[in-house]
């Protein structure tokens, strides 16, 4: 058993607009820090290996797998988790659309899907092309169904709620 004490560092995390001071093992992932230390369990651990997207959060508005980032490396970013996307009575339009379109069954992938979709819409807004964008120089991206599927393909849903997830996102795009 290595000396756990020797690997602890004080770190600061800014999550959902709140500042946290923590003492963490260097090897703690952002996902574990959120879930185990900050009691923000909305971000899920479906694989812990960057394969499923259940842990998707936003760093300065850009989506990232929290299981692939060390907490120490997240100190310089503004982190947004599902708990910061919307609250009861003040849901983000995507959260409402997931409810309206039944874009979930078990709901385990849902926080990751929603965080991913929030950041994805910002990517589209900023004009970032994807692998299926027909003409990358053509200006604003038309977020049609195939663009949506491509851009959401990093978030697995074993319940297979994809049809309704895509419909929910399309609904918000209008």
């Amino acid at each position: 058993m290595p000396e756990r004490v020797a690997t602890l560092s004080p770190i600061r995390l800014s999550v959902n607009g709140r500042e946290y001071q923590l003492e963490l093992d260097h090897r703690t992932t952002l996902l574990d820090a959120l879930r185990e230390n900050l009691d923000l369990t909305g971000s899920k651990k479906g694989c812990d290996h960057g394969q499923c997207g259940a842990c998707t959060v936003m760093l300065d508005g850009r989506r990232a797998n929290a299981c692939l980032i060390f907490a120490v490396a997240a100190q310089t970013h503004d982190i947004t988790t599902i708990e910061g996307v919307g609250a009861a009575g003040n849901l983000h339009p995507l959260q409402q659309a997931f409810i309206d379109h039944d874009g979930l069954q078990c709901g385990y992938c849902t926080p990751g899907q929603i965080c991913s979709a929030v950041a994805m819409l910002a990517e589209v807004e900023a004009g970032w092309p994807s692998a299926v964008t027909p003409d990358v120089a053509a200006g604003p991206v038309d977020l049609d169904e195939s663009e949506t599927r491509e851009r959401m393909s990093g978030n697995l849903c074993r319940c297979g709620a994809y049809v309704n997830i895509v419909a929910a996102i399309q609904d918000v795009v209008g």
Partner: protein
Amino acid sequence: MSDIATTHATKGTIGENASRPDGGPKVRGEFAFSGDLWADGMLWGRTLRSPHPAARIIAIDIAAALRIPGVHAVVTAADLPASVNYGLEWRDQPVFATDVVRYVGEPVAAVAADHPEAARQACEAIDVQYEPQVPLLDPAEAAAAPPIHPDGNVFRQLTIRTGDPSARGPIVVEGAYEVGMQDQAFMGPEAGLAIPADDGGIDLIVSTQWLHNDRLQVAECLGLAPEKVRLSLGGVGGAFGAREDVSLQIHACLLAQRTARPIKIVYSREESFLGHVHRHPARIWMRHSAEADGRLVSFEARILLDGGAYRSSSYHVVANATCFSAGPYKVENALAEGIGVRTNNPPCGAMRGFGAVQVCFAHEAQMDKLAEACGVDPVEIRLRNALATGDRLLTGQVIEGTLPVARVIREAAALPLPPSPEIADPMTRPGGAGRTADAAHVRRGIGFAVGFKNLMYAEGYMDGSAARCRLSDGLATVTCAAAEVGQGFVTLAQQIARTVLGVEDVLLAPADTSIGSAGSSSASRQTWMSGGAVEKACQAVRAALLQHVADRHGIDPAQLTITDGRVTSTDARDSIDLAVADAAPGVVFEEEVEYHHRITHPLDDDGQGDAHVSLVCAAHRAVVDVDPDLGLIRVVQVATAQDVGRALNPLQVLGQIEGGIAQGLGLATMEELTLRNGRILNPSFTDYLIPTALDMPEVLATLVEEPEPGAPFGAKGVGEPPTISSTPAIVAALRAATGKALNRVPVRPQDIALGDGE
């Protein structure tokens, strides 16, 4: 059919697209899944598993593990106070291996430590001396091989014989088929929190499909009375059959008992792949004979299912595979032999479709061969043989309920086809964006398949569900131990209560063992069984409320009814018109009931008997685009018509259909646990591929509503049919596009690019 009128002003009643009550918490990230639980002073549990498919255990030394700082306990089989075996239907599986291990991943010991990392290191420090044995890995050899377990190597052998199996029509088609090992791969890994209680008992919060069965197995192994083991449902991140067997339940409770501390266990993704049962891999041979016009004369099948090291639900998977082996078709002369065997491969058990999936892949390939041999259209040949109410199953049972096979076939075939590949978006060609160079390479195929299975358990099993309803000033509270696993039972429970009681506010008490068993969330049974229990409990409360109002007004309760949330009299002279909320101020009505379906019977020596409660069917038509040179596939569209009895929540029914198709597509084109020497080579989402949003085709669905007599509200379970015939429909489409035999699923790119032609 229920006698309750359903044209209510009350929102969210039966037949409407009511929203999930857990939808809000789930989209906000507030819903507590079992992996999110935490208790003061809790320790982390972890399991040490066998690296060998077959080995003798010479010695286990835990001393080094116990010396690791932060480690509180290490337990092995020697620490079990009572029963050392568990099992869903038959207790043949050791909680921890004792003298032998029988599969890679079998639990050998468990540890509790103050940090997951300390627990991991402790597992590594446990010194187990194994003497590897030659594993039994080929299921075809299992029956004749020396037994690898005291209960022998055959879980069940079932022969169904009817009519004259030697009868022959002029057209004969024959084939051998294989189904690989599919995994349920739910997104929320196994997790639970066991808390030792002051009375010497244990409270366990866990994600499971069947609280009460888990409780019984935990109690037996811990030597506790069942009442001392209290389970409640932790949020379940999908199940699909894999949570029907106990995984960490006994380990966590034993460690909690041992340490007197709460124990949390969460499986990693890899451990999840090792720690639950899979879909049985199958080898199937079938021979059909028919008249020249395609009408079936005889059917023969031999079905071999690899059950892996322990029995789980293999006994009943064999029954389903054999009973439904001919598909939803009339055939008077048949011999179907099913066998499920024990090997040193990972244990297999329940997965959505439960035995019907494997045989459907085979019988639908056969029906296509027959269509070709007879020169009849694949849809037409199925219509000519379609089972209907009044016909007999292979088991001799006369179909008494609804089974609109011909109708689902016609409705699915009638749905519109997608645009041709030439005009489709080039980014949606096979293989994903940019992989297939040009449309000229793409070949399109269309395939059709039909499947069926039973609802609920069979062969005389006394199935039941308990529910309680409480009504007080217009607020209803429903209690039922049915496990919500994502299927939406909680939504239905509310809809049923609203419909029967005319109230809008329905609270759902937590699912736990404080009430009687609701049975398992499996076999597409909860809508019927626990839906039936909730309806019955609510009806009892409704009757009590109406009696109360009648007594107060001195009238006959038979004159009273609840419509649009108001208690009114059918006799206008009574002038009674009360909101349900005001009908009995301060009075609490509470009723608890048990619901049972009609009795079924075991199968006899010829596999004959009235064994099934109810049947359900669906048809799927798949359209695929294939790049035959690269072996790349795109499933463009799946059109389906499904026998639903009655759609209690059409939006949720569609969700089940789409999700089931996604899993059927997975089995058809990508999902397989690959084994080498009994070891799973791909226990991760990098290597075990499941469909993404990109793989999901357009889905067109028609819900065929023919209410099932005897079923609450006429509704049938809807979860399984989409996974049964979607796989063979997709593979039929691949055959049509490529001309390849494709007798094995999943179909891999090399099977298309390099595989044999037909």
